[in-house]
């Protein structure tokens, strides 16, 4: 029998798989428990709040996994320009190709709300913290405070990830223009 933390994780992963297959509306707690190989009673022991709590945990789990992958994707970048370009291009592609995200957005977008509102500020701070060393290594325009610039860039990265607006972020040339001219124009020397 799986140990306790494994059951918790198994329930989240199994529920994610059910949502991916059937969509959130047609995923029942029975489906999730069955897919995880546990009883309904066990499911409620981990998620006493039932569907709301379980689904929220699934969204939070996938949210964290998304940003872990994003950080991993940009690990090798040497310069501020490269890390921004790689990160925006990767994140855009990962969101466009994230079928489960689009399934949830088209059926029950409110499932995302609590995770996004709870984690947004922390995520912005994490991205800023990640960008700061790149800014410290880069020659900056006069008067630019690296920490302030990192925070501004983190906000803009999140904004372009959520909505590309006028930009085609699947086009590397456009990503380069966005990063070099628009975002780093006032920052990089």
């Amino acid at each position, binding site marked *: 029998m799986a140990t306790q933390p494994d059951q918790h994780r198994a329930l989240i992963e199994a529920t994610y798989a059910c949502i991916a297959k059937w969509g959130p509306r047609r995923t029942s707690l029975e489906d999730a428990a069955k897919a995880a190989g546990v009883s309904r009673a066990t499911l409620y022991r981990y998620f006493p709040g039932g569907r709301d709590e379980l689904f929220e945990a699934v969204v939070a789990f996938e949210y964290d996994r998304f940003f872990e992958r994003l950080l991993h994707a940009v690990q090798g970048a040497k310069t501020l320009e490269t890390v921004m370009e790689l990160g925006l291009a990767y994140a855009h592609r990962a*969101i466009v190709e994230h079928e489960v995200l689009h399934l949830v*957005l088209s059926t029950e*977008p*409110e499932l*995302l*709300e609590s995770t*996004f*509102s709870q984690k*947004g*500020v922390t995520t*912005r701070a994490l991205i800023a913290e990640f960008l700061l060393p790149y800014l410290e290594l880069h020659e900056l*325009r006069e*008067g*630019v405070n690296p920490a*302030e*610039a990192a*925070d*501004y860039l983190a*906000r*803009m990265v*999140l*904004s*372009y990830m*959520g*909505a*590309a*607006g*006028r*930009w*085609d972020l699947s*086009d590397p*040339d*456009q990503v380069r*223009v966005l990063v070099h*001219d*628009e*975002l*780093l*124009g*006032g*920052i990089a020397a």
Partner: protein
Amino acid sequence: MPLSAISPSVLDPSASNRLKLIDAALLCIARTGASKVTIDDIAGEVKCSRATVYRTFPGGKEAIFAAAVETEVARFYSTMAVSMGRAGDLSELVVSIVTVSAAYLLNHETLNAIQASEPELVMSRLRFGEMDETLAGASAFAQPFFARWLEPEAASRAAELVVRFILSYLTDPDPRLNLEDEPAVRLFVDQFLLPGMVTTSTRQPLQQRSTTTRKKGRSTS
């Protein structure tokens, strides 16, 4: 905007029933949040019957709320247009957009009440596809003002960047940057936003610019 300023039309005999009911709804939402407001509350504010409310808005509460959003967006845009029209250069334009929209939105009692009781109503407009629509709408409105100093495509991008900036700092405030503090905003804007916009100080050089500043095309979405 203080509560007393929300519903000037409620006591104005010449205002249409439609506008009175919309302003009454805004006032009611400001007190309790959107979900608790009833048709009776709105009727009571205007001192009319439920039947009058339904005659004016056959769709009931939902229809009044939709009309209220539309009216408030129009009021917001008209305030913005006045301040954007006064800007003497690109820096002034961006600073006025940030400070005026922040002063308007941060002090909007109805919006604040919704943010406190039903934040998802606002935040859901700022995610993914909905965010694209919000960005496109707001940027298209601001674009002609930027086009006084920028080529059309650069103006569209600049407008979008400013909208992104405002939405980020309004929804996730930075304690170091008070959006209503004009000198602080000007420092920030001149440092971080303006250099990214392709600037010229007068209209005339626009025609002389080489196409290199336009760089690569863009998606039409």
